[in-house]
């Protein structure tokens, strides 16, 4: 292990040089990824919607992201007269900084990240939970009623979904017996944790969508009702900070999720091959993850706020507590690992089956799909 490796303490001034270089690399890579994520999302969603997406700026519209960046940077920075000046102006930064903070501890390859923390997992969800302060600040400081509604909706949603999210992560941490992300990744040498904890994965994925304010949980931004919600009054660079936060945290969550559940850089055979393959694995998994988020967004309508709350408190929370309890029993008595898999997959099957059954069980008609073709009147 070289002296500059991730996880070792480097004494003195070199530590500072080292950390600055690493942060610079991670931040730059993230910025480029975020720029092209906006392009990628537009292209992906456009293909789903039978459109082409950006095509005019460069070949296949590849320079669209750069053009957008320049436009945003040179745009006027407006502040409404009704706005609370400092709250309004600081809110984008308060939202954005937690995302940068999260990137500090994510392992992108073996022994490569900015700094390894032994409480890495705890740090990640603690830091990402800070987002909401900025969103509330934006909502309250904008002096706009749509923004106020958006900010309060975001707060309510965040609080409800933080609990299943954290508990699903704790279920994994119980098995790994550590919060160190690097160790968690190495433990997935044989199998990723999604195999052991499918239920925790499903719950994590759902709660993550909600934390990211992506469809079907995008009620704080709800374009068709409150037209963007908390960032409605922002323009130019401050608006692009919110955009950066949205896509940056999407990237951070997907790297984090693939580290915890999909084996990060380790599975399959990541530990045996070089760092290039490990980086490839990390990015491949996170991009597949992001694509799945976009896919969901392109097809699914939005939940109402009471349905959203009910889903969190009545479905996700009991299930994740059950998972937590089962893991506890299995681990305390040292029962085999297969049992973890069995119980959790029964839970996941139960959750998915519950949703499917709910869809099939229509109080008035067995199926609505294709009902338009049936002779009417008989169904009435």
């Amino acid at each position, binding site marked *: 292990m070289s002296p500059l490796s991730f996880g070792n303490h480097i004494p003195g001034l070199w530590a500072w040089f080292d950390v600055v270089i690493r942060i610079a690399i991670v931040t730059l890579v993230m910025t480029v990824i975020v720029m092209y994520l906006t392009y990628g999302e537009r292209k992906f969603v456009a293909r789903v919607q039978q459109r082409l997406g950006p095509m005019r700026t460069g070949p296949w519209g590849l320079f669209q992201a750069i053009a957008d960046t320049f436009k945003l940077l040179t745009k006027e920075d407006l502040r409404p007269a009704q706005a609370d000046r400092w709250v309004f102006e600081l809110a984008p930064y308060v939202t954005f900084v937690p995302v940068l903070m999260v990137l500090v501890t994510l392992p992108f390859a073996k022994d490569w990240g900015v700094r390894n923390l032994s409480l890495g997992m705890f740090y990640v969800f603690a830091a990402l939970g800070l987002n909401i302060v900025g969103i509330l600040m934006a909502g309250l400081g904008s002096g706009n009623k749509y923004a106020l509604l958006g900010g309060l909706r975001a707060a309510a949603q965040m609080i409800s979904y933080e609990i299943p999210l954290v508990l699903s992560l704790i279920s994994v941490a119980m098995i790994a017996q550590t919060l160190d992300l690097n160790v968690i990744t190495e433990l997935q040498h044989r199998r990723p944790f999604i195999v052991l904890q499918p239920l925790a994965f499903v719950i994590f994925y759902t709660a993550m969508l909600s934390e990211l304010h992506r469809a079907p949980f995008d009620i704080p931004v709800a374009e068709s009702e*409150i*037209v963007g919600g908390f960032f409605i009054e922002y323009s130019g660079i401050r608006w692009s900070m919110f955009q950066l936060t949205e896509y940056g945290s999407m990237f951070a969550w997907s790297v984090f999720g693939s580290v915890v559940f999909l084996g990060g850089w380790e599975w399959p055979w990541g530990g045996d091959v070089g760092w290039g393959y490990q980086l490839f694995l990390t990015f491949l998994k996170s991009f597949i993850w992001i694509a799945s988020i976009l896919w969901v967004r392109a097809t699914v309508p*939005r939940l109402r706020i009471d349905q959203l709350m009910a889903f969190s408190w009545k479905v996700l929370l009991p299930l994740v507590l059950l998972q937590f309890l089962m893991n506890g029993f299995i681990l305390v008595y040292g029962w085999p690992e297969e049992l973890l898999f069995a119980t959790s997959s029964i839970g996941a099957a139960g959750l998915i089956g519950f949703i499917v059954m709910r869809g099939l069980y229509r109080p008035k008609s067995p199926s*609505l*799909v294709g009902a338009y073709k049936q002779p009417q009147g008989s169904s*009435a």
Partner: protein
Amino acid sequence: MSIWPTEREYIAGPEDFETVDMTINIGPAHPATHGVFRMILTVDGERVVDCEPFIGYLHRGLEKLTENADYRQAMGWWDRTDYLAGMSCEMAYCMAVEKLAGIQIPERAEYIRVMMAELSRIASHFIAIGSFGQDVGSFGTSFTYAWRERERIYDFFEEVAGDRMFPTYLRPGGLQMDLPENYEPRVRWLINSIRQGIDDLDGLLTGNEIFVERCRGLSEINTERAINLGLTGPMIRATGYAWDIRKDVPYSVYDQFDFEIPTGFGTGDVLDRYLVRMAEMYQSTRIVEQCLDKLPGGLVLHPDLPKTIRIDDAECYIRTEGTKGEYSVYGMARGGNKPYRMKLRSPSFCNLSALKELVVGHYVADAVIILGSLDIVLGEVDK
């Protein structure tokens, strides 16, 4: 002495704590209003306690304009009332003029008119459902799916009449010109495409648990109340009452066709309105198919029509089933080449008048959906 507040205080809260209702302005430029419509919602938290609609942003003085123009010149303005289904509006206007003048139009023209009106109905319902899906929150996918079919219908309109949205294809006395030569395979292809499109939308929206959960049981209304509010079209059919002018007071050649009036499940909720529109599109494709099968030959314009139509004292009331409901025209002539009065009973306007009753008590997010389910077209509301 307990440290807990007594029950009364629990409900009322502390003396100096009061909640205030907030007013939210939605529109006139807002994605949910489908045009230039404005409503002021008074909300208590997320619940709507009052709703005040404002209309008139698109008022063009249609009725007065019609009084000042020749019977044929006014045609173009009537396209622009229900601008998603120009042909059905033209049909109502032409029928009014023909009734005033006592003109009998050729049968071929009647069939083509019905075909065009039904295609317009399909196009309009596609837009209604596509944008309704967007209101519920699907990220434009339902909209582009619907838009695809609507574009194909409009392409056909362009081939037929030379214009897409405002074809001005009909004339008092028949049609501007006959169908293009290859119309039959063209329309059959269009019908297949439309059915595929309905199927796609059905899978995307009706097959989605969240969509159904959002819509079911929302803003229910019973038949009696719907009649009292003057609701027509899919709004009243969703309550289980199969009221359709095409069947109940047949006009043109609608009595020649075999089609059904969909009524959904009869609860009058938002889901039913959506399902009724879906089923209506399917029934309309059936009518178009029958039009193709039965299309007689002959002229499309009355041969002995004078260049300028002059009508002496006459009065008429024409009821047609527009895309949004009962689209009726009251016409009055007192000599000369201009109508004395042309009054439009626009279905969107009457349906919109029920908005407050339907919206109050629901969430803000649902208010947007309910407005979407009314399927208003502002050109028709503001005339």
